């Protein structure tokens, strides 16, 4: 269940008992999918996930566990696959954030997304954006990854619907396609 309350309402400071400091806020820029965004007065403790979704309205990044365990919030941070709920947004200031929407069209991303649809690897679709980021990251680095490597690379992305068989089939289909098989 996506949580929308980030605990980041700056106005809440008004209701604090006297003597309590207001929740600290910060302003900074984020570069997401090639576009610059100004973030004003966000809660200092906010995760990259909550700022992407709740402040910048970039809801292609999904929110499920907020504990780094499910991978639905996966993005690339300076090209490395991360769970955006474990990254502090204010610390991503000078980094390049890439969501599923910003993956390079010259890489495997389009083929991966198409194969997911074709092979039935999308059911409720909630894990899909994170999965597509993780698969694209893997195939860009290891185009010939074997089954074990694919499973290992996706072990941080949980899917409650497909049982993973269709997802593995989609990855294999992309590999075959790209190898001209």
């Amino acid at each position, binding site marked *: 269940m996506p949580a929308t309350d980030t605990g980041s309402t700056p106005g809440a400071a008004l209701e604090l008992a006297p003597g309590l400091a207001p929740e600290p*806020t910060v302003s900074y820029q984020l570069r997401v999918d090639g576009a610059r965004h100004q973030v004003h007065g966000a809660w200092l403790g906010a995760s990259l996930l909550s700022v992407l979704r709740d402040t910048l309205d970039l809801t292609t990044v999904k929110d499920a566990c907020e504990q780094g365990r499910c991978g639905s919030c996966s993005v690339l941070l300076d090209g490395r*696959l991360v*769970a955006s*709920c*474990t990254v*502090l947004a204010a*610390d991503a200031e*000078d980094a390049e954030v890439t969501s599923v929407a910003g993956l390079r069209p010259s890489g495997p991303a389009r083929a991966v997304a198409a194969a997911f649809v074709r092979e039935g690897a999308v059911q409720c679709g909630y894990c899909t954006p994170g999965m597509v980021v993780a698969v694209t990251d893997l195939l860009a680095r290891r185009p010939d990854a074997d089954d074990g490597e694919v499973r290992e690379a996706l072990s941080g992305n949980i899917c409650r619907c497909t049982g993973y068989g269709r997802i593995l089939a989609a990855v294999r289909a992309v590999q075959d396609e790209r190898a001209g098989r």
Partner: protein
Amino acid sequence: MTGVATMRRPRSLSEAIDTLAASPGADLLAGGTDLVPALRTGARPVREMISLRRIVELRARGAAGDWLTIGACATYADLAGWSLAPGLAATARSVGSPQIRNTGTVGGALGTASPRGDLLTFLVAADAGVVVTGPVGQRQLGIGRFLADRHGPDELVTAVKLARPCGPQTYLKIGARQTASIPVASCALVVDRVRRLVRCAIGGVASRPVRALAAEDHVAETADWSTGALPPDAAHRFGELVAEAVTTAPDVAGDDVYAPAAYRSHAAGVLARRAAARCLAGARGADARRP
């Protein structure tokens, strides 16, 4: 600390130390895999924060003489393929998921010092040194000492030091699932064929990793050090002694939601036997260097 908490982003170690000296006790932020979820749930309050991500010198890892040095901001992914440190690499591969290994750092693991932290267990078996740095310079503590005393409010962990391996080493763990799962029990085994000794630490069973000293002595006395092989009955006894070390550890964990205490000590013994089979199989087992 004065004013409302804010975010500092030093670009060098000396800048970080000055920043920390100006607000001692500020939260150091490395990968954020422990800190960010804790801020979100309110388990930790938001305070002044000093990010270490931009300090390139803290990410270095290298070998000089008999020592390996690993910068505090090295991630698990940075270590997972390091051929000079096979036990450390095996430990790093066992942590979290690809996302967590790309983010979580050595310094963060020491900062959190979770009793179940995989890295801590390996560092205890490796008898590692922890380098902490503050305004008056740097000092090195043994890992046991660090876990007992931690570091001062104006200091940060800057590196970990390990002796260059002199024999096979491995790290084995049992968790609820293979990935992103803290260990119910884990075992780090480091063999030193030059000094003819082993060190074995068990994680997940007490408030800190437990060294199995009697079990270590048993291996030192019964192994054939010309080949590096441990006879099967000695390996069996090694497992029993490790299980005993767990049951008699001073602050052993009781039954909890993850496992009954009896399962933990049993599992520790089984893991230790398996680790011995990998690392003490004799000359033919030399490939155990790369578990």
